[in-house]
């Protein structure tokens, strides 16, 4: 039972336990297709942001600009789409605008990377600043109100299903699997984790640390843009301050998933399990008539509890 001694193992137990508990308390409704589907539509957007934050944390950094990047990308894409005057579903323009959003996310992420890698800013401050700047640009573009009037095809990303599986869930699953693979099986991923473990030794080992950080923050930015597109599609609009509560939620999920905020340790499977635990918990509580606010409270308590267990467990082994 050595897997139980890892943070991911414990989290897996928590996820399964929460699922079983909720299913037992309210079997008809919790296990209903409708509930399961609605869960699958709800969590991918913030789960993808959590992936971005987790990846940044692996280097010992953090990305506080994920929500700003997501909204800026979505606002730019939505503005392009809303000005489209051709008829029909607008599939072409949706694809073009989505590609543009990803490029915006990539550039925003690269800018973070330049600040951190080239100018040596602490990631927490660099991304705090750029988060405000990206949100600010989104505000400047929209002037405040939401961008409405998207073509019908824009709804597809966030609301359709593919073989009965909600598209956002598929996107999240692919991204999580891809990033998990990237971090565990590629030289880029291993470099990222080694840098997080000891940045100084990485430099002394002649590792291309600057390039690693640039690519990594670019990845965070692109992931944020994907999340932004899903939010936009589900809301059928884009706004500078959508999902502002998602930032702390994303950090919370990453930490809950066992990612060490000081770098060097973390696994994507942990983040996925953390997301699932939170979603099972909040949906189950929702069905029991518990409000969103109680959910928030339980998340906070869960974070502290898991952290406490991890700390006490590691203290006992060392």
């Amino acid at each position, binding site marked *: 039972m050595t897997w139980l001694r890892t943070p991911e193992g414990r989290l897996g137990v928590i996820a399964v336990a929460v699922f079983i508990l909720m299913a037992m308390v309210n079997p008809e409704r919790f296990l209903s297709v409708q509930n399961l589907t609605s869960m699958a539509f709800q969590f991918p957007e913030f789960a993808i942001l959590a992936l971005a934050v987790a990846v940044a944390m692996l280097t010992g950094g953090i990305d506080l600009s994920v929500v700003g990047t997501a909204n800026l990308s979505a606002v730019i894409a939505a503005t392009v789409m809303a000005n489209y005057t051709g008829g029909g579903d607008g599939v072409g323009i949706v694809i073009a605008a989505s590609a543009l959003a990803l490029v915006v996310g990539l550039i925003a992420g690269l800018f973070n990377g330049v600040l951190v890698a080239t100018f040596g800013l602490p990631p927490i401050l660099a991304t705090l600043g750029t988060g405000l700047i990206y949100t600010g640009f989104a505000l400047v573009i929209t002037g405040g109100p939401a961008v409405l009037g998207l073509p019908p095809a824009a709804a597809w990303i966030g609301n359709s299903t593919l073989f009965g599986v909600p598209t956002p869930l598929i996107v999240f699953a692919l991204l999580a699997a891809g990033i998990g693979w990237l971090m565990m099986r590629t030289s*880029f991923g291993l470099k990222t984790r080694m840098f997080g473990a000891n940045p100084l030794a990485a430099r002394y080992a002649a590792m291309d640390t600057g390039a690693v950080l640039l690519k990594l923050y670019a990845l965070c930015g692109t992931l944020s843009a994907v999340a932004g597109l899903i939010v936009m599609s589900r809301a059928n609009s884009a706004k500078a301050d959508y999902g502002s509560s998602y930032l702390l939620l994303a950090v919370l999920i990453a930490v809950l998933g066992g990612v060490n905020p000081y770098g060097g340790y973390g696994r994507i499977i942990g983040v996925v399990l953390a997301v699932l635990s939170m979603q099972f918990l909040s949906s189950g509580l929702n069905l029991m008539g518990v409000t969103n606010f109680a959910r928030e409270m339980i998340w906070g308590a869960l974070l502290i509890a898991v952290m406490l267990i991890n700390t006490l467990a590691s203290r006992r082994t060392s």
Partner: protein
Amino acid sequence: MTDSTAPLVTLESVTKRYTAITALDRVDMTIRAGEAVCLAGENGSGKSTLIKVLVGVEQPTQGRILFDGVAQGRITPTDATQAGVQVIFQDFSLFPNLSVWENIAITAERATGTKLVHRARARERALEVLERVGVSLDLDARVETLPVAHKQLVAICRALVSDARLIIMDEPTTALTEREVARLLDLIRRLKADGVAVLFVSHKLAEVLEVCEHVVVLRNGEKVADGPAEDFDAASLTRAMTGRDVAETPPGALDPSAPILLAVDSLTKAGAFRDVSLTLRKGEVLGVAGLLGSGRTSLAKALFGLATPDLGSVMLDGEPVPLGDPIAASAAGIGYVPEDRLTEGLFLEQSIARNIAVGRFDDHASGGVLNLKALWGEAADWLKRLSVKAPDPQAPVRSLSGGNQQRVVLARWMARQPRVLILNGPSVGVDVGSKAEIHGIIADLAARGLGVIVISDDLPELLGTCHRILVMKAGVITDEVRGGAGVTEDDLSHRLAS
């Protein structure tokens, strides 16, 4: 009852056992007022445990400790402080963000139990003690802005403000230049005249012998030598610490026709080193002897691209090496094994295999995808070649001993097949057996045609491994001696110090 003739501190058959190991085994020792005692021993000999027991951080398993001839029960850190025992740790335990006066006065002020800051009184105290040791420092300077020697002075002053009767100094000379050591010894003489006792704890004590009355040597937790300081010199101290003569066979003669591999021309970096020119032949081991602060580490970093020189050039095989870029230096075939293994060399929680392969992950990948089997296999291969006793290349590198950790860093660079390997303090913190083996590896590398630069302040090590030794002082290469051939340690040490 206090006996005025009794020693300040007496250890009687003090033993400290941890679950698996005996860190101290029936150690007896006395320190009298106004006396300087030298406690010598290699890393892991039990020196740090002895300090901890003396100041009450750890309790002895057996034996007893007497302050002023009075046997103590369980000593707490507060008891030790009240008895006048103060430790100056190697890192000085200062507060970099606070001023000089505050650092000096903080412990004494806290001891008065005051809740408020008595600024005038504290500054007065600080000034008084600075005058007592004959130093003038800017009271309001923040400690992080001071040079190392001055930080040490602040730490000494802090101990004195708290009415220290015994000051324990952990590795006091490692960070000091020759001149600063001389000043420190001056200060110690005056403190002794004042009746303050000093316990030097170090693995490198030859330089403080002259102010000491008494020498105690620990090895594997046991006291192996104890006597008046006059009976010891650098060589006998080393012999006592290591338990054998460290006379190593110097390397064989270098083929005079060996081509020049590395040519450094007038390399200069303001504030670090000046006008350094040197050549390194294929198969040659070149030593750089210098004290801390002589510019030896800056030079090594500049050669490897970790620091950018202002002037000069580095040529490898006739090709210029781009300066200020470690990736380019390593691509050109230069490797660097850093001095501080734990922070600069290793990823402690990561596996041995990753620590060996770091910097070359791309070589183990095709299209970015890692071939993990090859990565582990290569690591296992290196562990065997360098005879590292490790259960598993996937175990964290933290689980290895100092000597084996150093071999992991060596393997990392050897796997890159460098043309020139720079080793900074290759045997710091390494046990005696591993040290000899590391020297064997150095000889082997040279035999295979690498150029090796060994930077060290361990003179026997340089004499035993190098064909030529450059002496570096205040950023300038001042002397060159041939290794092995008739040069003694005393001779070299004289050239370093003069």
